[in-house]
């Protein structure tokens, strides 16, 4: 058989093996929509909590963050359960999922407690959220050997450091920029690259 097999064909097969193994390991890329969902949820919470104080139609701005986060959490569980049913179980997948679940539980426990005790201000809130998001992105980026997610972690860590300084207005600006690049843009990038890879696979095996 190998008499008819060219060196290029052999190399193509090695590339195919490599790309398919990487494909199986990087199935968490199909979770790009969660980054987008949570990015939008942060924007909704900020808008509700901030501008809602001056607009009667919004009202109850003190519950903006808890309500928005709980809704985003429920949506993630419901949509994720539907999508995840067809996903294969991998050790890497479980490792990455456990990082994000642990981070989510930490946030859900810590911030309501700090808020109700009154021992947190806007700066420490944004710094803590950004540091946690940075840690989770960095850990999963390193497990997946995915430079874009590590870059996303750097964005969040930068936001975390910068949030410790400056005025409240500057803090809000930094947080909005962090959400835009770390959640919205990254989420869209992941969804587009996932769709492109599916197309390439379809062509490769047509």
């Amino acid at each position, binding site marked *: 058989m190998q008499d008819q097999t060219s060196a290029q064909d*052999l190399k193509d097969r090695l590339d195919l093996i490599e790309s398919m193994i990487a494909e199986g390991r990087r*199935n968490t890329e199909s979770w790009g929509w969660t980054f987008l969902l949570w990015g939008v949820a942060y924007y909704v919470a900020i808008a509700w909590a901030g501008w809602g104080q001056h607009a009667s139609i919004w009202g109850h701005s003190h519950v903006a963050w808890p309500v928005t986060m709980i809704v985003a959490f429920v949506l993630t569980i419901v949509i994720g359960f539907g999508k995840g049913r067809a996903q294969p179980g991998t050790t890497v997948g479980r490792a990455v999922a456990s990082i994000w679940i642990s981070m989510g539980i930490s946030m859900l426990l810590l911030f309501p407690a700090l808020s109700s005790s009154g021992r947190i201000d806007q700066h420490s809130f944004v710094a803590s959220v950004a540091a946690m998001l940075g840690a989770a992105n960095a850990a999963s980026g390193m497990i997946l050997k995915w430079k874009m997610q590590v870059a996303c972690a750097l964005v969040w860590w930068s936001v975390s450091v910068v949030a410790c300084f400056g005025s409240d207005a500057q803090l809000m600006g930094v947080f909005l920029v962090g959400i835009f690049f770390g959640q919205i843009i990254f989420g869209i990038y992941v969804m587009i690259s996932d769709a492109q890879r599916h197309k390439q696979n*379809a062509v490769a095996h047509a």
Partner: protein
Amino acid sequence: MPELPELNPVIHGKLRLALLSLLTSVVEAEFTWLRARTGSTDGNLGAQLTKLEEAGYVVVEKKFVQRKPQTIYRMTEAGRKALTEYVQALKRLLGSAIEM
């Protein structure tokens, strides 16, 4: 001059090679997931998976999850060994092709 290795014809097909490579990185995979990752049609995918199953490289399990049928595929130890040997043979062939 050392003899060139034979390539395993069961694995050599592109789609079967892609399937085994995908299955090597996961514990188990559902039919629909394999279809999405390879961009293959149901008929072609089913036929190639059957060949791999007949060769003893994958095992299949059919079950119901929330009343919906699921077909789960797992790579066997024989499949893992065959893929490893195939990659080694490929590398040796590539090496000899470059030397020529």
